[in-house]
């Protein structure tokens, strides 16, 4: 459940983070003066943190998305398969696979 909401939260963060990518591209296309602002931001602490967070969110969202795609093939839906740590086998099997 945690991974599901984090998948959504990283998605929303990436959505707004696209503004950063657009800023980088537009500044590069505008000229050295505009690009100097980007260079400053990238070099600053807050800029590095933002870049790190954006990359983390991207990878996290991507891996969560691959998980969804695997589920789309109806594989790995059992409770034990969903969790990373082994869980006690339930006597009642889930009826999700029909």
């Amino acid at each position, binding site marked *: 459940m945690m991974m599901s909401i984090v998948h*959504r939260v990283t998605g929303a963060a990436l959505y707004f983070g*696209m503004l950063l990518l657009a800023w980088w591209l*537009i500044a*590069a296309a505008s000229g050295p003066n505009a690009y100097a602002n980007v260079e400053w931001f990238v*070099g600053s602490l807050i800029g590095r943190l933002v870049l790190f967070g954006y990359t983390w969110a991207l990878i996290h969202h991507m891996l969560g998305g691959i998980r969804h*795609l695997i589920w789309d093939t109806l594989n790995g839906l059992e409770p034990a398969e969903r969790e990373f740590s082994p869980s006690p086998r339930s006597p009642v099997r889930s009826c999700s696979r029909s």
Partner: protein
Amino acid sequence: MSAPRHIVTPMRRGARLGAARSGTGQFWHQRITSVAAVPLSIVLIVIVMALMGRSHAAVGRSSARRWVAVLMLLFILNTAYHMWIGMQEIILDYVHDELLKFLSLLGNTFFVFAVALASVFAILKLSFGV
């Protein structure tokens, strides 16, 4: 006695009652853009890592290369559509006030188009020489 059943008349359609009868397309398009996003995102990360910290002139030279420009364009367009559908899902899940929902969905579309087209413009401008 079963629940009253309704014929979907044009009036009911106009009042937005009844099932939407669409959405399968978006489900599928979201899967397509997800699959495409995996290699495209990796390519983008590689490009950004290679260009970050280098001079403006170096960025211009690298972005002018055909494959860099095309891959970045593909990434922008693919991601824009993917995030448009994704944000729409988020809005529809959480926003239920009719006016706010309407404005949010509008804003979603405007934001995605603005960011995507601005990025496409920049990539093309870089590619054709600043």
